């Protein structure tokens, strides 16, 4: 059934049902009395009509086509697709958590509040920050919350004119996007040849209108920003704040802390660094942490400890307010908390060391076969520049498509933008030597195929449920709804 490709509508048969509901035992109000005519559906709603077993088979067959970290190696650079330990799921499924209601009085939810309080403390320790808010539901959401905090801070000092956010040209696209949503003007600065912040370019744009600089360290090229102290001093001297995008935190846990580097605001991705499911596997979580002078601007409610009770404190007049309904994605927090307790300080440090070792191992093995623009010790990920000049007819996209034939999720490609034909590989710490070796062998084999039989790559993938997709047609003339 590998080739199963039906839509649920195609399984539908008029009159078939999966369950029978009893008659309604409360008075049924007339829809027309509650919803204006113009907003009411006219005619039948065409929902699929299927039996329970058909529903189960349909979605099980579709799910068999999924590729995830539970089915194979997933070296997607910048995304930290590390294994999601099953104990996390067990903990999040405890009935005490799943049976919670967000409107429950705090006095009856002490365990959950304690967990959130302690998770915030742990993240503060890992990041070197004063306090965290767990509300943001994703990385970019954390960025937005962090930028709003920066804005509130400047406004509180009468410095509304500080409306410019500086981002390097190697930044994650979400950085300038979040800054724009938060109402800032974006100034892009060039990176040097090693993908680090170009100090002179930075100096040239700092002014009394600088709100802050957004940075990830290690950089998008997987290299530690060695000048971070000088960068922080320059930005602070200009009156700006330093924002840390935690996307690459998996490289430095237990080794270095953003707070110690001079960052004032950070966000972490629990779904990257702290092993909770990622992408389609579950909602994200992007807690935002701040330095001491910004604590009063954090979102409300703040979870505080009063004696031996945990309370939700809304009385924070300078707070930017709520950034998410209720308290954020709580189940994700339980999983991250379980992960941190499972690993301990030593385990987290070792995880980062192993992530760095694994990335360097692959890099060293592949650099004879692919173009490596920056040949030095990397952190948790590294960036290749495709197959190199002599093989320009075979593109990075072709390599990625061919990897699908060998059963691997391809690495991130064409990002960062500052490396031509980029292939960004991040193995994470949880992969064994054997897994890394198998992947390396396949990458080398693909490089050989590119020389001997380029057509094989250009027409890849050959063994997937669908062949190469027409991305241009999909973007220009998308078909967005099913029609018979």
């Amino acid at each position, binding site marked *: 059934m590998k080739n199963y490709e039906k839509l649920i509508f195609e399984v539908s048969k008029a009159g078939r049902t999966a369950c029978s509901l009893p008659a309604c035992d409360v008075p049924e109000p007339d829809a027309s009395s509650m919803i204006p005519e113009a907003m009411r559906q006219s005619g039948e709603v065409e929902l699929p009509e299927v039996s329970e077993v058909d529903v189960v088979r349909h979605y099980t067959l579709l799910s068999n086509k999924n590729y995830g970290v539970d089915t194979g190696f997933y070296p997607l650079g910048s995304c930290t697709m590390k294994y999601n330990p099953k104990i996390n799921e067990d903990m999040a499924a405890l009935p005490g958590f799943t049976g919670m209601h967000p409107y429950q009085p705090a006095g009856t939810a002490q365990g959950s509040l304690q967990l959130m309080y302690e998770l915030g403390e742990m993240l503060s320790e890992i990041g070197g920050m004063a306090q965290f808010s767990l509300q943001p539901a994703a990385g970019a959401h954390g960025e937005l919350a962090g930028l709003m905090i920066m804005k509130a801070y400047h406004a509180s000092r009468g410095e509304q004119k500080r409306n410019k956010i500086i981002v390097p040209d190697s930044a994650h696209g979400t950085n300038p996007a979040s800054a724009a949503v938060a109402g800032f003007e974006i100034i892009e600065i060039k990176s040097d040849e090693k993908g680090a912040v170009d100090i002179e370019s930075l100096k040239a744009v700092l002014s009394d209108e600088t709100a802050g600089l957004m940075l990830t360290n290690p950089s998008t090229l997987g290299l530690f920003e060695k000048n971070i102290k000088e960068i922080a001093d320059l930005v602070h001297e200009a009156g700006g704040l330093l924002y840390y995008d935690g996307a690459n935190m998996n490289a430095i846990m237990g080794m270095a802390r953003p707070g110690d580097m001079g960052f004032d605001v950070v966000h972490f991705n629990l779904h990257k660094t702290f092993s909770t499911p990622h992408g389609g596997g579950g909602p994200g979580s992007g807690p935002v942490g701040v330095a001491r002078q910004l604590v009063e601007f954090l979102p409300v409610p703040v979870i505080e400890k009063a004696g031996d009770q945990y309370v939700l404190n809304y009385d924070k007049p300078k707070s930017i307010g709520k950034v998410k309904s209720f308290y954020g994605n709580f189940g994700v927090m339980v999983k991250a908390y379980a992960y941190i307790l499972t690993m301990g300080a030593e385990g987290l440090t070792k995880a980062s060391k192993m992530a760095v070792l694994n990335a360097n191992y692959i890099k060293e093995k592949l650099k004879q076969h692919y173009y490596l623009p920056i040949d030095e010790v990397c952190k948790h990920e590294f960036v290749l520049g495709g197959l190199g000049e002599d093989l320009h007819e075979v593109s990075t996209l072709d390599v990625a498509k061919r990897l699908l034939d060998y059963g691997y999720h391809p690495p991130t490609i*064409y990002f960062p*933008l500052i490396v031509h034909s980029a292939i960004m590989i991040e193995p994470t710490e949880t992969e064994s030597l054997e897994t890394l070796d198998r992947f390396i062998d396949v990458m080398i084999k693909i490089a050989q195929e590119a020389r001997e039989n380029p057509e094989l790559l250009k027409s890849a993938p050959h063994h997937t449920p669908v062949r190469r997709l027409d*991305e*241009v047609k999909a*973007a*220009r003339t998308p078909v967005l709804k099913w029609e018979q």
Partner: protein
Amino acid sequence: MKTIEGLFYSKDHEWVRVEGSKAYVGITDYAQHALGDIVYVELPEAGASMKQDETFGSVESVKAASDMILPVSGTITEVNDAVTEDPALVNQDAFENWMLIVEMSDPTELEHLMNAVAYKEFCGEEA
């Protein structure tokens, strides 16, 4: 790459064709080629006044999105709806399918732009 004599070129890969005080603005053949198949073009409303070096719109391909930077200051008198409706036109002929027309407020700004020969050389360096 194709260039056309008599046009002005910016380092951001826009071209300008001058007719009196009117300037037709588009992206160069080099730019469309570098972007690949263009799938989306965003243009401003006609009537807006904009300055040289301001971002006036964006082009998106399946592999990248790029801002378009206005090479001359002035009032936008017309935008080319044909390219927003069918972005592929820009790939077919980047010089024929202009993005917008600017009523120039300061034609001396043209002096800061390149001619075809200088632009060709500029692209050679960048490549």
